């Protein structure tokens, strides 16, 4: 059981590594942020599994905080990028396709 959850956690870490490709490729900021959002959820799952595997219930707290914070970060992103008088330059190489 514990080794199974460890191995699954490892595979989830690998999917994060794969998902990084989307962050690298973009093309829009939203795509990158979306990938980060997925990392958040995956990290929550990894935390829960690791916590179970190593018998440390603390990790559930950390996972809870993670879940809360990814939500706040995503909201920051959505609200921030909506209106921003000085933003244009940043999107120069971010035009989709």
């Amino acid at each position: 059981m514990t080794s199974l959850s460890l191995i699954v956690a490892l595979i989830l870490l690998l999917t994060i590594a794969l998902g990084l490709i989307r962050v690298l490729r973009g093309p829009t900021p939203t795509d990158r942020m979306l990938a980060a959002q997925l990392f958040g959820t995956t990290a929550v799952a990894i935390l829960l599994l690791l916590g179970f595997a190593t018998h440390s219930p603390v990790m559930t707290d950390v996972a809870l905080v993670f879940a809360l914070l990814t939500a706040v970060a995503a909201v920051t992103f959505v609200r921030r990028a909506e209106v921003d008088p000085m933003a244009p330059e940043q999107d120069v190489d971010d035009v989709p396709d």
Partner: protein
Amino acid sequence: MMSLIDLFSGALILASLPFFVAGTLGLLRFPDLYCRLHALTKADNLGLGLVVLALMLQAQSWLQVLRLLLIWLLVLIAGATVAHLIARKALAAGHRPWRRP
């Protein structure tokens, strides 16, 4: 020595794996933002749900069950809302959804 519950939660954990992998692959392979959004929110929330379910079976106390449930609900609601906001924003910014050529 594995009990039935262990077996069951092990199966659940394993079952969660395809969802995460599918979510990641969708993120990588799907053609545009809206499709990716779609793949992502469905896949990872279900995946996490299965993991949570598996660990709830193993939980020592009701408090732990409650916390796990809370985490899942939080991710579910936040994920759905944020996906909605992102899609809304992208539409407002004039990104047309992808269509099969």
